[in-house]
């Protein structure tokens, strides 16, 4: 069950610093992800159990004051430039103690899940899942309708044997014409 969890102003400032260093940036992407990803991270934490939420607050404080562990000075993380924040987080990520390494690793997962599942990021990387899912749902609906209308045994025989759709065109949307043709042949 989702809680009313909110990061305090100070914790949010640390989280913003971490998110800002961890979100992807590409020169021709043209969008600043930090504010949205920060909101997404907070929403995600809201669904976590109370003891995990408490642990995350501790983790934020740990990276905030983790300078001495990484020999990067004693200035709190949220007061550093993005370049210096990155250096400190990288050093924490490569620390000799696994427990220390796991803190930025966990925070990174929160950031990455929120950043890399965004539609604009997926589309930029050539993997727009939302469009793909929609196409697939429609495609499957057609297969199921064909199965029902023909009263034929379902997969795998319905496809290869009866020409519902060719193996080559199964996942290739650019070859939908071929699939349609196969369907027409099969129907006729």
């Amino acid at each position, binding site marked *: 069950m989702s809680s009313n969890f909110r990061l305090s102003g100070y914790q949010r400032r640390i989280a913003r610093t971490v998110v800002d260093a961890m979100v992807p940036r590409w020169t021709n992407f043209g969008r600043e992800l930090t504010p949205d990803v920060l909101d997404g991270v907070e929403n995600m934490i809201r669904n976590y159990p109370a003891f995990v939420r408490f642990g995350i607050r501790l983790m934020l404080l740990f990276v905030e004051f983790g300078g001495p562990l990484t020999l990067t000075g004693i200035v709190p993380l949220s007061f550093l430039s993005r370049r210096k924040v990155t250096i400190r987080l990288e050093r924490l990520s490569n620390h000799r103690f696994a427990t220390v390494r796991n803190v930025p690793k966990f925070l990174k997962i929160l950031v990455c899940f929120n950043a890399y599942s965004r539609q604009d990021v997926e589309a930029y990387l050539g993997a727009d*899942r939302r469009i*793909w899912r929609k196409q697939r749902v429609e495609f499957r609906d057609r297969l199921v309708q064909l199965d029902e209308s023909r009263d034929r045994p379902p997969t795998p025989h319905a496809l290869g044997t009866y020409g519902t759709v060719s193996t080559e065109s199964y996942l290739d949307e650019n070859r939908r014409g071929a699939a349609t043709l196969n369907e027409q042949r099969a129907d006729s």
Partner: protein
Amino acid sequence: MIIEPHNTQGDLNLSADVVVVGSGAGGSTVAATLAQAGLDVIVLEEGGYFKTEDYGADIPAMMGRMMRGGGSTVLMGRSPVPYLEGKCVGGSTVINGGMCWRTPDKVLHEWGTERGLTELSSRHLEPYFERVEETINARHQDPGSEGRCNDVFKSGADKLGWRLSLNKRNQIHCVGSNDCVTGCPSGAKQSTLYSWLPRFFQSGGRLYTRMKVKKIQTSRGHAVGVSGTLDDPYEPRRFSVSARAVVLSCGAVQTPLLLQRNKLCKPCGHVGKHFTIHPNVKMAALFDDPIDSMRGTHQAWQCTEFVDEGILLAPGAIPTAFMSAIFPTFGETLADQMINSRHIATGGVLVDDHAEGQIKTLPFGLPYVRYDVTDVDQEKFIKAASLLATLYFEAGAREVYTAFHHWPVLKTPDDIKKMKDAAPSVESTEYFTAHIMGTCRMSARATDGVVDTNGESWDVPGLYIADASVLPGTIGVNPQVTIMALSLMIAQRLSNALLKG
């Protein structure tokens, strides 16, 4: 009939022949079987009910809605091991990859000879496996639906002459949307929502959602019902269900926790112990040609060449967000790597583990789940990772990414030997698991386990367990068919007993 909190008012006092706690692989199988036998069955599910149309593409949101702890669950130990557990109607069958493997004969033989569980022989279990596979539509993928991530894996294995097994998955026309982990958006995956539960409802079964069972009620040492609270946002509400038999199917983590919180089955001393997890590590490989992991099925093949050594290699196509978590980098460095994400194939190695974990309930009811990968199993992991890297290089990979902190990238096949020689430690390895089992194991003798071969507790008559926790040991393959087959066996025996007496 699915009954949600808003369909009822006030506190609920219910009764039935059998109350089943949990609606995943075990609970749904038991519920459907008992209801079809004519018994009045109530299923209590802690999570909510989400239909196929509800499965969105927003990964963090879906994890928050359908997974325990919003997907934050972790086994503590030398290296923390994240695991995912479904918390919704259908349980983990809604979020799993849908692989369907019978328990290997070798494992069943071992259970018979070493543990005296002769009733779990291949011959005895055959009809249960058959019925399970038929009910959940365990079958091969449609030809052409596998995708490039699976194709390159097959190509590497073929070149090396390694044995491949074509997965059966519980699906009808899986069209390769590859979003198994947040609920199949096309309805192709035959989770219990599509297989056992419709049969349960057809036979008049009732399923209540958002019901958290806290207490197992007993009378003169017999289990006679359960009680707990409803997750109703408007008012605090309670429920109780009295029944002739109580079946716990909350999964391998929650079932022992519930028993421990109720201080039940303590005399046997095995609750929450002996669990194994099939730990696995994820790997990735960069290819010249596009892989497009998004297109295709999660896993079509498994390489079983090294299964006698307890090593399984498999492709595992995952969405971009999960892929980004494999790399040890972040920020601009990760962004540069992810630019090539269309060219990256992902896979994993699974090891038949011999370590045993433990589940404890801490003060305030907090769960503590500990599992330490042993050095012996780590040797297997290093070997397995080397084998998978070899396979990917053979398939034409330019680089291979590992889960070992000090060896994140292998640039040439020569690096494999260097990585092996360096022997990465447990602490520097990132593991993952989706197969936790054996926390309330089945045994032939009361001193060896928590339940007998009927699934009934040795200590509390009338209390049954039917989920991954009863597995007597590690099985080396994806466990959903094993869980369902054992649950089916338990349900049939329970229905016979209840109908007779």
